[in-house]
């Protein structure tokens, strides 16, 4: 196995162009599991650890540019206000040791439907910046996942960073698993409120071949909140609205039976997560008066 150690981003792109089958590795928490167990025997690895910019983030006016290899522990520590949904999800990744190494770029590269980063990225709104020697392109995150553990990357492309919309309202993430660490999600749900545009975002994990949004649920909730004037009044979301929202979230799922749970359980649990996270974000919205027009 050849080990390529590019010193900067330009060298990394050249290495990937010259070795399209080479596997990029940063934290290693996903790739190494497969290598240690002989599930994957790449001819070459491209070590991204020397590329400083991949471990940097920058907060802009509307978006956060998050380097692909910023470890989860730093997202939790340094970006809980700008990216609250992702920070909550990051708390549930692996264990403290894993969170010190792993980052969002690896989650996107692996493109597992169970990856913890995906629901908050979908809910908040994000674009994945990928690059090759041919140039750079930005892919909306919902178009990035193309199948089970498949993504939109071309063989010569690497993930450079993710541009994530800064939170303009409350965000939540919830995940079902058997314990509080080292858990691959049975199902997961991310929810973001955007009071400025009076829209909501959702992200569903581990309940379909790819991470998905529940577009019909989003539109229903936006309309229901609008028609009842709840964005302005900060009133309680009627249980019937929360119930219909949860039903529509479940309708967007397409789960399977596997070792972690049955499709039926996943549908049930997803509905619970949808109602629960809606409660949480709406309570926070009412409490903090996020951009609310009247008191």
């Amino acid at each position: 196995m050849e080990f390529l150690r590019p010193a900067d981003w330009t060298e990394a792109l050249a290495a990937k162009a010259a070795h399209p089958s080479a596997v990029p590795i940063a934290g290693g928490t996903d790739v190494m599991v497969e290598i240690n167990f002989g599930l994957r025997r790449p001819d070459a690895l491209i070590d991204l650890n020397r590329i400083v910019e991949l471990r940097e983030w920058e907060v802009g006016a509307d978006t956060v540019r998050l380097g692909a290899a910023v470890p989860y522990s730093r997202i939790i520590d340094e970006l809980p206000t700008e990216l609250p949904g992702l920070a909550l999800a990051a708390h549930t990744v692996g264990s403290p040791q894993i969170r010190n190494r792993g980052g969002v770029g690896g989650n996107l590269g692996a493109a597992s439907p169970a990856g913890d980063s995906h629901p908050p990225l979908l809910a908040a709104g994000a674009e994945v910046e990928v690059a090759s020697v041919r140039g750079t392109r930005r892919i909306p995150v919902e178009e990035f996942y193309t199948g089970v553990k498949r993504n939109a990357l071309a063989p010569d492309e690497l993930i450079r960073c993710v541009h994530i919309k800064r939170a303009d309202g409350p965000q939540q993430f919830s995940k079902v698993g058997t314990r509080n660490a080292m858990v691959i999600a049975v199902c997961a749900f991310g929810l973001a409120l955007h009071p400025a545009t009076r829209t909501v975002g959702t992200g569903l994990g581990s309940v379909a071949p790819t991470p998905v949004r529940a577009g019909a649920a989003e539109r229903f909730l936006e309309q229901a909140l609008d028609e009842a004037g709840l964005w302005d009044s900060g009133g309680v979301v009627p249980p019937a609205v929360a119930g219909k929202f949860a039903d529509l979230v479940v309708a967007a799922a397409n789960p399977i039976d596997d070792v972690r749970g049955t499709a039926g359980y996943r549908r049930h649990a997803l509905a619970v997560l949808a109602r629960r996270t809606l409660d949480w974000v709406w309570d926070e919205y009412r409490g903090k008066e996020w951009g609310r027009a009247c008191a």
Partner: protein
Amino acid sequence: MDSRLLTSAVTLRVNGTVHRLTLDNRSTLLDTLREDLDLTGAKKGCDHGQCGSCTVLVDGRRVNCCLLLTVACDGSEITTVEGLSDGWSLHPVQEAFLARDAFQCGYCTPGQVCSAVGALREMAEGRPSAVTVGTEPPSGAAEIRERMSGNLCRCAAYPNIVRAVGDAAERAAEWWERTP
């Protein structure tokens, strides 16, 4: 394939000693420590990051070294359980584990101890855990259990591990300076 492509030269500083090694690119840091440097404290429990028994500190942060390629650690500062003690006096976390009898078979203990040292540093730096409430200093069993959730103990010595880490946290201020 040219065999030179399959090996790399790396420099590691392990427990204060500099090692220059030429290694197969596939070597994990865990295998390098155990097989090449005879530092057998870190254990290969699961080899895929689930159990935490291979936990060591790399540049001051706790990591599962079964998931790290040694060649990717070139230039890093590594502390294993062997490097916590100066050979005469134990590290306070080790003392706390002894005083609290925080193990049975001892297999997971080097990983538990290194993880606790990393956790106490994260707590001292004010890094929040999932159960940290507000800005209060982290304390209490729930906080410690969350912080230590990456280390399994199949003898289930958890109650005394939690007590040992709690004791060490209380004493942390005294010895913080000498923690690697």
